[in-house]
């Protein structure tokens, strides 16, 4: 059941990661909107079978009617978003520049900053948080555990805005993971492909000790 005091979740991208995050969010009581590039009608069947309770929306509605907007579509399309709609929004950037799998993209390959900083520069009025990008989509449901259980899996969280980060932290913990504050957004570099944390199953203590030097 939807709990009214929780932030509303909007997921952009209804593929593997987007549907997994939407499903887990619904199951712990969030109101969830979800969208893709083809419009809400294209999602009706998918929602009725996989995500009963989620609301199919346009991308713009997903942004305007949500408190936390999760980006779960291929990174190369990030400039298809309308920055003006993001004023004051908390954005979870779960996207990766994963060249060996998705191909080289000069814009990201040549960049001197992380992909999430590029997203933040583009969505200049949003508070971008890098998190939930370093876990395989199926593990969102499979590894989620009640608060502080044995084997609780760590998820790193990086962002510049303190309050936005706390909100994102609470969300990640509500999903069933141990949120680890990795500091400012640029430290999201610790979570990108080709790092020790990418795809790694570890506890918060282990994540803290593996990243301590850098923070």
């Amino acid at each position, binding site marked *: 059941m939807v709990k009214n005091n929780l932030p509303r979740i909007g997921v952009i991208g*209804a*593929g*593997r990661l987007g*549907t997994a995050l939407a499903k887990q969010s619904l199951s712990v009581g969030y109101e969830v909107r979800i969208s893709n590039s083809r419009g809400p009608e294209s999602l009706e*069947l*998918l929602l*009725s*079978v*996989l995500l009963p309770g989620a609301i199919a929306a346009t991308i713009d509605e997903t942004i305007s009617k949500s408190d936390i907007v999760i980006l779960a579509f291929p990174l*190369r399309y990030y400039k298809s978003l309308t920055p003006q709609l993001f004023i004051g929004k908390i954005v979870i950037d779960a996207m990766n520049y*994963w060249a*060996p*799998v*998705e*191909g*080289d*993209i000069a814009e990201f390959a040549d960049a001197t900053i992380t992909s999430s900083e590029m997203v933040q520069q583009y969505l200049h009025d949003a508070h971008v948080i890098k998190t939930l990008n370093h876990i*395989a*989509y*199926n*593990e969102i*449901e*499979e590894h989620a555990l009640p608060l502080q259980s044995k084997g609780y899996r760590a998820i790193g969280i990086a962002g510049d805005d303190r309050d936005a980060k706390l909100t994102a932290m609470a969300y990640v913990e509500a999903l069933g993971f141990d949120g680890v504050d990795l500091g400012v957004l640029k430290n999201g570099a610790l979570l990108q*492909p*080709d*790092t*020790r*944390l*990418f*795809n*790694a*199953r570890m506890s918060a203590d282990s994540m803290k000790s593996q990243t301590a030097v850098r923070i």
Partner: protein
Amino acid sequence: MELGVYSFGDVQRNGKKLGSTSEGITNLLEAMQIADKVGLDFFGVGEHHTSYFPASSPGTILAAAAATTKQIKLGSAVSVLSTDDPVRIYQQFATANIISGGRVEVIAGRGSSTESFPLFGYELKDYDALYTEKLDLLLQLNNLDKNERITWEGIHRAPLQDAQIVPQSDDPLKIWLATGGNPDSSIRAAALGLPIAYAVIGGRISRFAPLVDLYHAAAKQYGTESDALQVSIASPGYIADSAQDAKETFWKAWGWTMTELGKVRGFAAPDRAHYDAESNHDGALFAGSADEIADRIIELHKRIGHSRHIFQMDVGQLPHDKFLHSIELLGTVVAPKVRKALASGKK
């Protein structure tokens, strides 16, 4: 329920070094022949282009197997359709199908292997567009009437103007759509009326149950429901005489492969706890004794009603004799047990 094997043509270890790719291919053909002898239903060859997985041209080896096996169905698992020419795939598979007397199938996928993109001059970013267009052409070729010519135009391939494509298979090839779990792919397969081949390489296998529901719901919506809509599962798996032997042996083989893949793709290698969790119960890794694997297949069948389950056994330099023994156990111990259980379940 059909049971079988799929392989990328795993190369053996020669001391500390990898053996030759040619030996990998010879071993692969032998494994296909053994699978036929022990009565398995299907053998798939998955296109890969690495020093440890050298099965780069499934159509060629399928033709060799077609000529040297009697009853087993043969297919790609998968053909990387995005970077191949559908005309060439159709011709090669139709040829092998004729040689085999109608036992050859195509499992068309995007492929997890990305090496073929630079090799054949394609860009990974065009992945989706390439796949959609090439699948369309392949299906059109497969559905041509006898001696019918084709006129076709797309973006990623030269147009065809009243072209004749030979040889033609007497009956259309069975073409499966392969997917790794993107929900839109299940909808797409159903909309096209194609059987679907799920590759489940990690995590819990039952997470595919809702996708199978989606596949059937989509078929209903698109009005494509028919006996052609079948579900196949492909997962890593290995069978030995004892459960413990199977789990230890496969940990080495699978662990090596995932570690290598992790280096290339930039993800952390799985540890033993990860492997243990996924090689039991609902996990995607079917390593165990024949009884255990039979039980797990039967259990999964209850949940998703799949009509075929195939296993990738030879990874990470699994010794060839162990590979052959695993195939034998699948054919002679697992298959009869599964068939018996499913036959009695239907009464």
